[in-house]
């Protein structure tokens, strides 16, 4: 009969064998960078930082005015979750933006619920439609306005992600307030034109770097680049949301420091930081 010591020894040997048969897929530098993101996030969660400065990018905190316009006009407010969906044949960074848009949909949903304005959510993916419906339902529940939830609806328009599909996703009705959050690519221009036609206000947000000019031109209030991920931290008192932004800020600070130090070393002594990461420069 094996004793606990034998069992423990066997377990340690097993783990050791597994580790012995393992190797790093990347060089040590890139591996540490990936783990660093997790470590910074976990460190902040373990010690939540309470100091926070609200910037209200995109003017989403003042959404009450948009809802007042919609209530006065007797029309609905429209929120588009972009064209990436959650399960479409598109890259993960685009689909992540759809996830990031859900808290913003929740914020708009709560404002709409309090104002009695029906909400129409446009998606082009059945999974995103289900998530959106759940978010809107949750917004009505948290504002104790469940009786108004029947007036809000999620619309699935499944034509895809091309330019004509982006136009098809918009509605011919003229909402008083329109919002578009999520991944928008080449269809962004026509999509925002369609949403904003006749709307009293249009707010958009996308983390697609190449579409930043389109968002700035097409909508008076825009969240560009990382702002789409950062905006929920300004809208909710949720410590976890703010921790994520603080973690990201620290990582951005580290990246800027690394770039500055690397540039100085490169100019001063000809040191190439790419050597550390095993990158063969062409």
């Amino acid at each position, binding site marked *: 009969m094996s004793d606990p010591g034998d069992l423990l020894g066997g377990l340690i040997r097993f783990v050791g064998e597994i580790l012995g048969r393992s190797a*790093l*897929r990347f060089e040590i530098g890139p591996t540490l960078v990936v783990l660093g993101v*997790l470590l910074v996030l976990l460190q902040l969660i373990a010690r939540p930082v309470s100091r926070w400065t609200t910037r209200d990018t995109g003017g989403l905190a003042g959404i009450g005015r948009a809802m007042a316009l919609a209530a006065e006009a007797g029309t609905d407010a429209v929120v588009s979750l972009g064209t990436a969906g959650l399960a479409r044949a598109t890259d993960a960074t685009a689909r992540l933006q759809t*996830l990031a848009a859900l808290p913003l949909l929740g914020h708009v949903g709560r404002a709409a619920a309090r104002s009695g304005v029906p909400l129409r959510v446009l998606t082009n993916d059945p999974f995103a439609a289900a998530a959106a419906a759940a978010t809107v339902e949750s917004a009505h529940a948290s504002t104790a306005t469940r009786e108004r939830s029947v007036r809000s609806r999620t619309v699935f328009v499944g034509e895809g992600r091309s330019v004509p599909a982006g136009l*098809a996703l918009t509605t011919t009705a003229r909402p008083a307030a329109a919002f578009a959050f999520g991944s928008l690519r080449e269809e962004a221009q026509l999509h925002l034109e369609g949403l904003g036609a006749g709307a009293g206000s249009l707010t958009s947000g996308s983390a697609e770097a190449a579409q930043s000019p389109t968002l700035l031109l097409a909508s008076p209030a825009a969240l560009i*680049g990382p702002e789409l991920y950062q905006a929920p931290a300004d809208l909710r008192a949720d410590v976890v949301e703010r921790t994520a932004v603080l973690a990201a800020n620290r990582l951005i600070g580290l990246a800027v420091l690394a770039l500055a130090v690397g540039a100085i070393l490169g100019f001063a002594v000809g040191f190439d930081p790419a050597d550390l990461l095993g990158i063969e420069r062409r």
Partner: protein
Amino acid sequence: MRHPGLAALVLVVGLLLLADALVVNSSLAELADLVVRAAILVAAGAALAGVASLALRRGGDLWRRRGDPVGAVLVIGGMAAVLVAGLRPGGEGAADPAVGWMVAALIVPIGASLFGLLFVSTLAASRRSVAARRPEAYVLVGVAMVTLVLLLPLGGTVGAWLADAASWTLLVPIGAVLRGLLIGIALVAAVVAARTVLGIGGADE
């Protein structure tokens, strides 16, 4: 409130795939392979569900006489034409000449033409933004004008100078701004993705 079972599943799958991305190990690779195959099945199912949902929605629009009937007829007709052409007895699926004709003669030109609309809509959006006297619009439109002039495909010495200036503009100022955006987006997205993988926080509560 997120279901604890779902949160645990997300955590386990996320950590497994993250470990497989960082570490080369045969046992880990087999487990990750199982998860990846499941993800592919889900994606394929979602794609089929999307197509079926589209057909049902447009069919429902026609049946209930709501929405855009012309659009609904065109969507359902187009889907039926491609499905019949590809799946009819003796057809070659996606490689069938009839399907190829529809793609080359209809879908590609229509897609490219609508993409060409962006030329007009971008100019119109620029004019509206400038008319609204937004500071960022002035900067964007001014820089766009300069960049367009640099991109003029002229020959000779002038053309060569313009081309060099365009390359410098792309690599240095425009490249610097976009790299900053890309680095910021990548880092924030990495943190958000880590939160999702670790099951920290819900989508919205």
